[in-house]
């Protein structure tokens, strides 16, 4: 068996550590995601979904337990190494597109490559154009995000998340802000890339309809995994 893309063991997260208002929001999470897996993370609001996603995305550090990305334990990594690992192996899709308003769609898709390599190059531009083509926005490559519709913005964000061919895509309610029809499109797009590139996807969603279309559903309640089952059953 290959090493899992992510592996969490007894992971905890507490805020305001050492103060009277200390609160633990995640109480020992065990979770692993294999290559090519497409999992939904569901649960009521306040259950710790976003926190868990941020920790897996290396935006926050866990309080306890172990988090490995691609078999690499992250506890011993320095801030700089964490940043680099995040940039190269994780693609984010946020609820609100979070594109950079000062840059065109094309530049936004190139940005992860520019950050990783220090500057843009022809290859990065070609890749970015291919990705925009794949999400059906090649014609809008030179538009700023403000000139695009909500669905188009989210497509650009997906293209951006895929720019460096990451092994893991994390999506925080990627369709939460869109109408049903557009949401289906976006979901289908993620699903397609997951099949093509065999990257692992973890998608936070409130929509049971979309969750049902994933391979696996992880349900989080009060900071614990309540159940973790294949979607078909």
């Amino acid at each position: 068996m290959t090493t899992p893309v992510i592996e969490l063991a007894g992971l905890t997260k507490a805020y305001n550590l050492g103060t009277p208002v200390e609160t633990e929001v995640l109480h020992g999470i065990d979770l692993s995601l294999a290559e090519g897996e497409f999992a939904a993370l569901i649960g009521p609001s306040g259950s710790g979904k976003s926190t868990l996603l941020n920790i897996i995305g290396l935006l926050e550090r866990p309080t306890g337990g172990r988090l490995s990305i691609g078999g690499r334990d992250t506890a011993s990594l320095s801030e700089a190494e964490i940043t680099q690992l995040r940039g190269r192996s994780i693609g984010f899709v946020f609820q609100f597109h979070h594109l950079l308003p000062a840059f065109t769609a094309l530049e936004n898709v190139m940005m992860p490559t520019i950050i990783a390599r220090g500057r843009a190059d022809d290859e990065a531009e070609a890749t970015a154009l291919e990705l925009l083509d794949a999400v059906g926005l090649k014609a809008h490559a030179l538009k700023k995000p403000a000139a695009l519709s909500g669905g188009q913005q989210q497509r650009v964000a997906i293209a951006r998340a895929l720019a460096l061919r990451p092994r893991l895509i994390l999506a925080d309610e990627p369709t939460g802000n869109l109408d049903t029809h557009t949401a289906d499109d976006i979901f289908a797009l993620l699903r397609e890339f997951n099949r093509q590139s065999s990257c692992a996807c973890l998608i936070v969603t409130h929509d049971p309809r979309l969750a049902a279309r994933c391979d696996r559903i992880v349900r989080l309640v009060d900071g614990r995994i309540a159940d973790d089952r294949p979607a078909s059953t």
Partner: protein
Amino acid sequence: MKLRLPFAPLVALRFLREGRMQTLLILAGTTGGVAVIVFLTQLITQLQAQIVDRVLGSQAHVVIRPAEEANRRAIDEAGFASIIEPRAQRLRSIDQWENIARLAADMPGVTAVSPVVTGPAFAVRGQASKSVALMGVDAERYRRIVRMEEYMVAGRFAVDGTRAVIGSELAKDLGIRMDDKLRVALPNGRDELLQVGGIFDIGNKDLNRRWIFVTLPLAQSLLDLPGGVSNLDLTVADIFEAQPVADRLRGATSLTVESWMQTNAQLLAALRNQSVSNNLIRSFVVIIVALGIASVLVVSVVQKQKEIGILRAMGASRGMILQVFLIQGAVVGAVGSILGSALAFTLLNVFSAIYRNADGQPLFAAELEPRFIAMAAVVATAVGLLSALIPARRAARMDPVQAIRS
């Protein structure tokens, strides 16, 4: 081939362009600040140079004179009451002045040495007599001390035999024209009939009334100083190095050596005060510009919180974010220095057209020295960079999660 900027300058420039109004305002502030500094510096430098030039137009940079005579007590015991009368200073020659002149000429920084014999006399014509200073010079050598040929209104600056050069005021007072005769009488009873071979106007009425230039030997014999000179006039390469040169010469000769800076101590003090107030104004302007840049960037960091978070999520390090904001400060400073220098140049042109001397000449030239533009560029860029430091550090420390959520 497309121009592909590295990450930090690319994002910095885009952020500046995006924040239009803010960027324009802070650029205007920086431009104004730079313009004030450059304009003021250029103006004061020019005016000071003019004043110094005018003062030194009729003066030697350094003058060597014989040591003053003083009385010494043969017996110096406590308990002896004695009253010592100060000695009157008679006209004396510098001992072995040829050697001293050679020594001075060999001193680094000295460009010309001219022996001068000078003493009091009366210029007499008909019933009128005027008190004058007889100046025995070698015209060729003296020209390198005071540019006399530039001041000639009639004839040439040349002396030989009994041909003399006098000032325009004296000529007017005595009703003398070129080639007229003029008698000088000395306190020791000697006198001589001179022929006027040149008339100068040095721009100073007092000197125009007093100076009569004759040959060195004639002055020596009239003043009873055969073969001697009363002082050596020196020109130095760098006028503000006159004092050290004078000090070194004093040490080497134990004669009285005075630089123009000592003779014109008050003028120098005034120039120095002007420089101090100029520096004060410049410092305040720099501080105000720095505060302006810093405050606009602080606001920009808050506004760009989300973008900073996104960039961090995509793998941008703290160092990269720090650079983005430092570059914004430096760019504002650099562009401001260029625009500010251009504005200063315009101001110089406008003011030099408005303000004129009594003779109709512009008070100062409408030119901007490249070194001041270079200075402005370096200072403004450094100030921009430094004032961006606090906002940039704040941006770099921002928690990406907080930034994205807000």
